[in-house]
């Protein structure tokens, strides 16, 4: 008797039970708390918040736990949850110039107002496995900046005073932002929509594209004008008040990349900007994003488009990890019907080919 491959309720329920068991692991080992994940795997949590486009460390940690540490699955969980949230209002643009800094470095000036602040970074750790962590050792308190430190101006503002760098102009439609999760992307896209797409984009994809611009695939001569990481206030103007009130703080990483530009019909030669922003501490993402942002400005600056990182449709249509992961993995779904159609075709073509080869 023929029995088709059937899923059915029970198979799905069994699968979920097995998954839950594997996620938990050996029950004799203590279970991870959300608090532990949030505090001790903070960079993973930051990535999930950035690409999940939802600033909520606790829920991001929960998603990471539920996803057994799979970042893309965790981003998926957070995004699906985010869909159900109402839009209560739009904040005023973050003023990153007023950031309470953890870290701030510039590759363009040796010294500058506010100074270089190394802060917490893996950059100079020499990457030797720390076997002390196998056992777990107490960590002594680290020296830090005074809490009342003055805000430090952005490096690019210093260049701006001389007119050496393009003025930063608000995108069309500001301050009401394009919302990619509500409105579909249309090409050509506004810079605001592009930046939003890049901020949510898969870090690996953006990193590879940004990297490609440094290897001749785009005419790019970038300098890291500034990378800063710290906390900024989020402000909202409630309609009934008419003035901005702070509704909280979030940690962000911002990168302003400086690029050469030869000048155009309407503009003298000057430096141009590439911009990157990520939730939490995500320098790799913010820097790669700023390179790709600049590469995607090619049409606006009259540059030839001949490299992948400059091709808007290519970059923006393939940057989202959920779209990519879902569609690649949908190949697991049954395709019996299409395959059957192809099977029949290939058989027919083979019969024709054999008949043609036979001597007449």
């Amino acid at each position, binding site marked *: 008797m023929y029995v088709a491959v059937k899923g059915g309720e029970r198979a799905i329920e069994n699968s979920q039970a097995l998954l839950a068991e594997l996620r938990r692991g050996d029950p004799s080992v203590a279970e991870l708390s959300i608090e532990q994940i949030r505090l001790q795997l903070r960079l993973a949590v930051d990535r999930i918040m950035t690409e999940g486009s939802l600033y909520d460390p606790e829920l991001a940690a929960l998603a990471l736990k539920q996803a057994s540490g799979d970042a893309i699955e965790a981003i998926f969980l957070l995004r699906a949850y985010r869909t159900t949230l109402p839009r209560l209002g739009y904040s005023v643009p973050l003023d990153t110039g007023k950031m309470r800094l953890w870290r701030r470095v510039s590759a363009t000036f040796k010294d500058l107002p506010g100074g270089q602040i190394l802060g917490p970074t893996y950059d100079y750790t020499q990457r030797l496995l720390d076997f002390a962590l196998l056992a777990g050792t107490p960590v002594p308190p680290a020296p830090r900046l005074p809490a009342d430190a003055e805000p430090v101006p952005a490096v690019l503002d210093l260049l701006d005073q001389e007119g050496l760098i393009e003025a930063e102009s608000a995108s069309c439609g500001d301050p009401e932002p394009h919302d990619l999760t509500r409105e579909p992307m249309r090409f050509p896209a506004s810079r605001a929509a592009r930046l939003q797409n890049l901020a949510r984009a898969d870090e690996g994809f953006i990193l590879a594209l940004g990297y490609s611009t440094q290897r001749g695939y785009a005419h790019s001569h970038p300098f890291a004008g500034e990378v800063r990481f710290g906390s900024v206030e989020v402000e909202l103007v409630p309609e009934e008040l008419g003035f901005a009130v702070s509704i909280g703080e979030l940690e962000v990483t911002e990168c302003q990349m400086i690029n050469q530009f*030869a*000048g*155009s*019909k309407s503009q003298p030669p000057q430096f141009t900007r590439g911009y990157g922003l990520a939730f939490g501490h995500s320098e790799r993402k913010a820097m790669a994003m700023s390179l790709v942002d600049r590469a995607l400005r090619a049409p606006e600056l*009259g540059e030839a488009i001949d490299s992948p990182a400059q091709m808007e449709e290519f970059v923006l249509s393939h940057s989202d990890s959920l779209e990519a992961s879902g569609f690649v993995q949908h190949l697991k779904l049954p395709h019996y019907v299409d395959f059957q159609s192809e099977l029949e075709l290939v058989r027919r073509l083979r019969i024709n080919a054999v008949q043609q080869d036979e001597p007449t």
Partner: protein
Amino acid sequence: MAADSATPLLCARALRRLYGRIVALEEVSFELWPGEILAIVGESGSGKSTLLHVLAGQLEPDEGEVLFDLPGRGLQDIYRLCEGERRTLARTDWGFVHQHAVDGLRMHVSAGANVVERQMALGERHYGRLRRLALDWLQHVELDPARIDDAPVIFSGGMRQRLQIARNLVTLPRLVFLDEPTSGLDVSVQARLLDLLRRLTRELGLAVVLVTHDLAVARLLAHRTMVMQLGRVVESGLTDQLLDDPVHPYTQLLVSSVLPP
């Protein structure tokens, strides 16, 4: 040349185009008559390619206009047409033969389909008729009809150019743009292709705008020649006259062949 026509087929008026602060075209005006072949010559950077793209509706000029004699409507500025009209014009009444065949052909699609794509776009839905049309045109351009199902990616440079020509002429356009159609080919292949072009333009009464850096090509094909330097037309006239008795010093320099292409 149909000298009795009352209206020119194509008309350029005071064209100007800048790239940044570089002037690519300045004050370019001329008329092209039905059946006339006009060569635009000059060294690279003279603005001749820019002019060709402006004329062919691919690059809007900063100033000036490009007029084309539309059937029943007379001279119309092609940049005032809606995009659909311009695109239809470009694949029916116009042809564009690119310098590099990869820009003008579908390299991985059979020669036959390359030839008849325009007809399919116009609504021809009979495979047998399309097939016969493709075979006819392969013969017109002296390509072996047995190669009808081969893709141009395995064709030689000369064969690719012939295929491009067939693909463009299949709708019997009135105007064809030729962008350095013979450069990069061996001398003997060039000569045969030029013969073919001369024969086809005569048989079909085509008007042609030909861009070339090779004065020999202009002499062989063109009724009239325009010499460009730094975005401006410095001299123009009947080809034989212009080449035998150049007036402008730059033309004299070109004719004495001291300039590299």
